[in-house]
């Protein structure tokens, strides 16, 4: 059978090849598509070189094209989820957006938006580094995120490909903290 034909309901709930992924308390199915094949090692390394051209200070956790950013954050690296579904997942999973003054905690979600306010990218907040630069102490925030279908990197929160936009916000499902 041809692999390229139009799959009916590709990535939808009835698609046996889609991950059975539901939001909190099974409220909604999360449309997703599992890539059939990994990129070749050479192609993945080319992706890494490109990522390094975005920012030198980038640390690679893994190179893979088998999931995207939302697949990393919401599906344990098992599938690819379109960015347009992220608001639905955050709402259903009972996340709340942190206020400007509220400090994020490790594990909170970072959502990036473009100039049209559309969600473009998502990652996990992993570190707040205190640094003293020119006698002015400040905090550098680091994020772990999968860049498209290239790989998973830790990077400064604002050092990302231009396509992801410049705006970001924090989301959490924390309710009780010590």
């Amino acid at each position, binding site marked *: 059978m041809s692999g390229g034909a139009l799959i009916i309901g590709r990535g939808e709930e009835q698609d046996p090849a889609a991950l059975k992924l539901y939001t909190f308390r099974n409220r909604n199915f999360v449309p997703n598509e599992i890539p059939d094949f990994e990129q070749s090692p050479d192609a993945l390394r080319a992706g890494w*070189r490109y990522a390094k051209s975005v920012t030198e200070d980038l640390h690679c956790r893994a190179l893979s094209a088998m999931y995207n950013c939302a697949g990393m954050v919401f599906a344990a690296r098992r599938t690819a989820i379109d960015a347009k579904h992220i608001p639905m997942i955050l709402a259903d999973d009972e996340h709340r957006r942190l206020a400007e003054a509220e400090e994020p905690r490790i594990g909170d979600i970072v959502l990036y938006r473009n100039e049209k306010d559309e969600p473009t990218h998502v990652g996990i907040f992993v570190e707040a580094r205190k640094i003293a630069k020119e006698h002015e102490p400040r905090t550098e925030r680091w994020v772990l995120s999968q860049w498209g279908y290239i790989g998973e990197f830790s990077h400064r929160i604002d050092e990302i490909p231009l396509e992801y936009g410049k705006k970001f916000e924090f989301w959490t499902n924390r309710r009780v903290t010590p």
Partner: protein
Amino acid sequence: MSVSAAMAEIESRNFSARMSVATDTGMFLKILEHDRTVNDLLEELGHIGQARSLVHRVFALLTERVDVRFRNPHDVAIAVFLWALTRRQEEYGKIAAQTAEDLCVRYWWTPKITKLIASGALSGETRKIEGPVHLLTFSLKLPINYPLQRPDLHSPWAQATGNCVFANISSAIGASPLDPYLEVQEVWLNFNVGLPVMKGGFWMDPRNVDSGQSENIKIAGELAWNVKNPESQTIGIHD
């Protein structure tokens, strides 16, 4: 940049890496629209000869032998070429996309672009239709054995042909709630069909359309596998 230089750049591993930063198809298209090399290629494709040679290049890439363990290394290049052809020479884009659709196994972006081309979503131009046309949308309800197989349409271009001004498949969606105990589930294939208005204001009643036997319109819902009792399909009309 010459067309050959633009094609070589688009086929390069570096270009593929740059495009792979896209999170989803929407972002992939946005990156394309702003890419200088792609815009150079678009400019050159105004010449019919260049478009023809690009179609040949797409066919060559589609049939090239590659390492079957991995995603096809030409995935991004073919997706970009199909998109560019459709933008500048739509008929060539459609021909190349139909061929790609049948051959693109182990691809990621290419099937997404061929689907957009088939749906008409990438066409920048509207076609002038001669004479009055009655627009109808209607649906075929098909039972499909979902849990065992992944149903696919043989070709989204070939679904409705015959005595109609235009016809396309607008969506194909599952109609039944997922039930693990129900083997056969229903899928709705939704069509848009433009029918010519006949003399005296008569237009063909879509209820006469059946699963492929009508002399006027052939709805060839060619579900390639696993359609149980295709003759039993019912037609819903949404005028």
